[in-house]
């Protein structure tokens, strides 16, 4: 089982975001997408999420249920961390489960404070828990660990690995060390447009 991106092209006006790009992602595993700034990593993720349509090319085998940690946190500012996670959860996910997950990555002290009062790192963790607890078969993560210090990052990485076992996870990162530490497949995107197919290592 795999997800195939075939000859994708995407332009925004005159600017070519992705030019004839193909790749294969294994289902049920984690893949890090790396590449220089502006090479189209976020655009590729948005195409795969179905938020934008490609000008040319197809994406085959994409699961229905998706969740994501976006580049920005995209939280409901006036609501608490618990409420933000509850927004995307199925009814069978209990309040205790949400609280347990938030507490697991150090948010136990600020469960009910509105997220606008939280620090950048705390908000990032809320967005991560939201993506993990949403009912999904694939998790997209666009620079999920930015703004986290080394110790916290280790804790959050281990939380994500623990809770995404068996799921397809695509992580966009600039940090080569981070990609190697995660021990997953790495897809290198060159600056706009390889002609040949690529597959994760």
């Amino acid at each position, binding site marked *: 089982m795999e997800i195939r991106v075939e000859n994708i092209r995407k332009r925004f006006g005159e600017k070519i975001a992705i030019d004839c790009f193909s790749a294969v992602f294994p289902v049920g595993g984690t893949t890090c997408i790396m590449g220089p700034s502006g090479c189209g990593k976020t655009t590729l993720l948005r195409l795969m999420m179905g*938020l934008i349509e490609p000008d040319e090319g197809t994406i085959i085998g994409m699961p229905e*249920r*998706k969740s994501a940690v*976006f580049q920005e946190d*995209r939280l409901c500012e*006036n*609501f608490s961390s618990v409420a933000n996670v509850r927004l995307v959860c199925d009814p069978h996910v209990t309040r205790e489960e949400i609280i347990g997950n938030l507490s697991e990555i150090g948010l136990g002290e600020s469960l009910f404070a509105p997220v606008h009062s939280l620090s950048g790192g705390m908000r990032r963790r809320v967005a991560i828990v939201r993506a993990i607890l*949403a009912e999904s078969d694939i998790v997209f993560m666009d620079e999920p660990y930015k703004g986290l210090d080394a110790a916290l990052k280790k804790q959050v990485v281990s939380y994500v690995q623990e809770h995404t076992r068996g799921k397809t996870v695509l992580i966009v990162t600039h940090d080569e060390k981070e990609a190697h530490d995660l021990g997953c497949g790495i897809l290198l995107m060159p600056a706009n447009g390889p002609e040949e197919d690529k597959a994760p290592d």
Partner: protein
Amino acid sequence: MAIVLWQMAALALGRSLLLVSPLDVVIRLARLSSTGSFWASVAFSFFRICLGFLAALSAGMVLAFLAARVKTIEIMLWPYMAAVKATPVASFIILCLIWIGSGGLSVFISFLMVLPIIYTNVLQGLHSFDPKMEEMATLFGVTPLRRLYYFHIPQIRPFLLSACGVAIGLSWKAGIAAEVIGIPSGSIGERLYEAKIYFSSADLFAWTAVVVLLSIGFEKMFVALMKRSFDQMEKI
């Protein structure tokens, strides 16, 4: 300070017909409030103006939500809202007297004055919604009801609160003006009209004070209640 100046000006002028003193107004108000007809007039106007306001609040919100969702509805509603905003209130009052008589006059006028304010402000709030949040909701498959609760209601909160602050004052001003012209029996407007007929400045000032107190009181209470409801909603 203003009351002291008012008292001094009234004493200097010495003619209660032109400028009644604040003390006389308080005495007149105390005397009026001890009668049953005073409270009946207050209740008559209060319920009608508030009914018009609440009806416009509901209708304005529903129309704004529809217009935000369907551009055609927004385009179709625009000339009506623009016309209601620009038409002199006196024209509506006379039209209403011809159509429905004086009984429901203040309800109708209050409704008409408030509707475009609520509609315009709520629509502006809904239009300012961050499309990135819409994307997030689409990706996670958030239900329309949850979108309403988590996104749209908090989104319109500041717009709605500021609109209500303005609209309540306007609904009282226009509602009472309509009553003075239409003279529905037993209304505050009728009392003001009588004050004019009998050159009773004390009555005019006393009833004006009543209207100001009712308007400010209702505005403060209603806005506080709305803020509390919004806060409660966000504490889940």
